């Protein structure tokens, strides 16, 4: 899958490497800002409260 993507990136090798890094950064940012905060509501680590009543 990743080899397929790499092969289909246009340009010479150095351009492919730059594109790869940009893609990686975009994916990580998307995860950190959108996906993980959404997953977080199901995370067990956050509940530090006493159930009241």
């Amino acid at each position, binding site marked *: 899958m990743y080899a397929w993507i790499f092969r289909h990136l246009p340009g010479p090798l150095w351009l492919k490497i730059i594109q790869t890094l940009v893609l990686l950064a975009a994916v990580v940012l998307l995860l950190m800002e959108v996906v993980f905060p959404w997953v977080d509501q199901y995370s067990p*680590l*956050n509940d*530090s409260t006493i*159930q009241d009543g």
Partner: protein
Amino acid sequence: MPTHPLPPSRPRHARRSAAAAPVRRSVGSRILGGVGELFITLGVLGILFLVWELWWTGLEADRERNEATQELFSNIEALENPGDSNGDANGDGNGNGGDGEESRGGVELEDLVVPGPDHTANFADQGGVMAMVYAPRLGADWAAPVVPGVGPESLNRAGLGHYSSTQLPGEPGNFALAGHRQTYGNILWNQDKFAVGDLIYVQSPDGWYIYSVTETYIVQPNQSDVLAPVPGDLEAEAEGSTLTLTTCHPPYTTLERMITHAELVDYAPLSDGPPSAVADTVERQMQADGPFGDLSSQEAR
């Protein structure tokens, strides 16, 4: 003349050209490779999530905590200097001694008489930051703003959330707060370090409340009597003021809760300035700019 003849070059050349040509992999090999990539991806995702949960949330929380802190300071300042928003950020003591606000009825708490927490209640009603907590035992410069409510939107934003069903500092009863142990800036990571007699300083718009730690223990998450006006006794009527901190325990789980109680031992009006033990911390909190700068604190200066 070389005694050993060079190895024939033709096979090597052939091998190289074979490697350069696209490899025809069998269907089974390609499926296995795809599954392998999937597993590696899932593993990396899991690690990334932990990085996010334990570290990235802390970065955001630190920034928001700083904003919350400045919000409280500027609101308190506005309260002390009505109509003068450019007042000295240090509030030099003789702000406005007796303009009617001070004539609120006092509350008797055992041997202390403190003013009623009218301003604090007011701040809380507006959903704003209602107090700051300073606890030198939890770390140098440890300070946390308190917002009403203990939902994720409260705890993730500031440091501590106030159980809205409990009382305010300066009211007879329990001023109960919750904080994260391991995520979002893990504000209460060190809660287990509290020793009996440690002082916790609460700065609210109504003054400085100084609490002394009486005990720290572990309970089940549903043991709500720790939030009672007299912790552990649902029937009793409170005479003093208690501060209660709750967080997760053991670290990295939510199986139990760690509870710390502290008793109110002293009170000082805001005009007396911060108690000397936390004066430096307060000073630094007032000047602290978030990593991206903070407009409200720059305005205040």
